[in-house]
């Protein structure tokens, strides 16, 4: 019984973390048709920025509870600065090229960002564990969980609901759906497609940075922390169906539960359980769970 509770709790915490990262990735793919390999580096950037800012905040003697706001601000800062620079400065020159070439462009970007992080922050690790312990813990049966983890789950739910509301209920969201459906016709109807791209990429970057910023208090912030994250996020996004935000949510929950089940029951399976799920889902639903099959072109 307690194992089941642990599997569920750990699974949901892991799923929340995965969803924060995967949501931005799937949105960027859905709108821009770019499978962003640099997403993991944006996550790393978010983590480092959060570590630096929270460190400065606490050293400055400000109220410790404010550090949660600083985490969010760090994500916003990375998103608003790096997102537009990358989209306007690099990606827009590559639109219209083959999807695989775009993957390589972002792979190059990933290599560049990884080293830029090392140039700015050096190669030693950073720790900002204060926000993690600040809220205390809660007992679930025999298990003890930090309330901070619950905060991450809440943040993921809030992001999911906000995206759903933004896409389905607002004018900007409807324009976004039009662009996803047909880029050229949207442009012909007067939608500013390049602005939609800019906003999408900025939002996606902010979400990746938020994932990193919220992770920063729970781990050692080290160079290369985004390398594994990116393939995990790929798995989540592909399971749910590329470009689908609800799909990413389902994929995150599935992957989160499978991984925590593997950790608790069969630890030696942990490393590849996720990719096993991905291979199985793709074997049954080639385009992922939330995407309809496409007609073959003649």
């Amino acid at each position, binding site marked *: 019984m307690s194992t089941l509770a642990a599997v569920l709790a750990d699974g949901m915490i892991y799923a929340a973390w995965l969803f924060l990262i995967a949501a931005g990735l799937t949105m960027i793919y859905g709108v821009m048709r770019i499978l962003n390999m640099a997403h993991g580096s944006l996550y790393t950037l978010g983590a480092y920025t959060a570590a630096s800012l929270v460190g400065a905040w606490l050293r400055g003697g400000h109220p410790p509870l404010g550090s949660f706001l600083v985490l969010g601000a760090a994500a916003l800062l990375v998103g608003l600065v790096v997102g537009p620079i990358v989209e306007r400065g690099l990606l827009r020159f590559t639109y219209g090229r083959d999807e*695989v070439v775009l993957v390589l462009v972002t792979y*190059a970007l990933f*290599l*560049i960002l990884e080293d830029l992080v090392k*140039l700015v922050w050096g190669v030693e690790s950073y720790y900002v564990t204060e926000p993690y312990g600040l809220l205390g813990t809660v007992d679930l049966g025999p298990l003890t969980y930090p309330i901070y983890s619950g905060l991450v789950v809440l943040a993921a739910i809030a992001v999911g609901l906000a995206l759903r509301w933004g896409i389905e209920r607002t004018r900007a969201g409807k324009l976004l759906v039009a662009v996803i459906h047909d880029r050229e016709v949207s442009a012909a109807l007067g939608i500013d497609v390049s602005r939609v791209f800019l906003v999408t990429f900025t939002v996606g970057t902010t979400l990746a940075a938020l994932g990193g910023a919220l992770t920063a208090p729970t781990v050692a912030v080290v160079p290369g922390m985004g390398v594994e994250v990116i393939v995990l996020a790929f798995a989540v996004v592909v399971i749910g169906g590329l470009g689908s935000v609800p799909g990413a949510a389902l994929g995150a929950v599935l992957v989160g539960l499978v991984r925590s089940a593997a950790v608790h029951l069969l630890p030696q399976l942990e490393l590849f359980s996720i*990719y096993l799920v991905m291979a199985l889902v*793709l074997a049954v639903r*080639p385009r992922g769970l939330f995407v309809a099959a496409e007609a073959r072109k003649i």
Partner: protein
Amino acid sequence: MSDARRTALGLLAAFAVAVAAAPLLPRWALFLVAVALGRGLVALGLLLLIRTGLVSFGQGLFFAVGAYAAGTAGSRLHVGDAVALVLLGAVAAAAVAGVLGLLLARYRTIFFAMLSLAFSMIAYGLLVESPALGSTDGFNVHPATVAGVPFAGRAEAYAPYLLALAVAAAAALALDRFQRTHLGRLAPAVRENELRVEYMGASVRNVVHLNLVIAAALAGAGGAVTALAVGHIDPEMAYWTTSGEFVFVTIVAGTSSVAAPFAGAILLELLRSYAVQHAPNTWQLVMGATMLGIILALPGGLWSIFTRRRGARP
């Protein structure tokens, strides 16, 4: 002179020059070229896949299978002959691709890329969890022999170099030949329009499956060559960053000639060793920037510099 003959003569000439240059090259260059050619073999397989319209982000899997097959056969079964080990690596990888291909051959575009990536990451997980194969550390490969002469003393530097050259030249020649057969010509047709290929009576899935197996065999041979040249193998060979590098080499080099992947691989290794030496903390930045420059300035890859000057070629 026909195109096929020109390619064959060019390859043979390059092979002869490289063999003749061996005594003039410093040890580090021999090693670098041997390792680069091993990786070039994987890129050659990817070239065939890209001509079929597929990009695999999981060639690291077959690279690792070839290396581990050659490594285990060398240390456990005491197979010493390098050529036999390379063939064994190729056959092992081809067998794995034969099975996985049953599923993979149904996928296209980004879904093919992602499924192949998933398979390679599963293999990475399996290798890391196998204490018998050295887990994360991998293991050292027994020095092999070529025609009974061991890789030792003076021969230690030359043998892997010559082995890599011979395997690379043979593979490039064979692949060029294959691409000029009826079966080989179906690959670009599949990329252009699958339905029309099926109207003509050919099986798209069989073509894709066959090309997957050939590409895997090349990757397996490349893995075996690399294992013998480096003398050590580890699970990192199956990790996604290794596979990403292979795609990088293939696209950056260009896909218009079977020589391009090898030239691209050698260039990449040179660039890497210079960047690591002169900018140890920023070598990835140098590589990434170079790559962006090539992608943006030369959409057809580096090899298109030659083909463009010689006039239009398909």
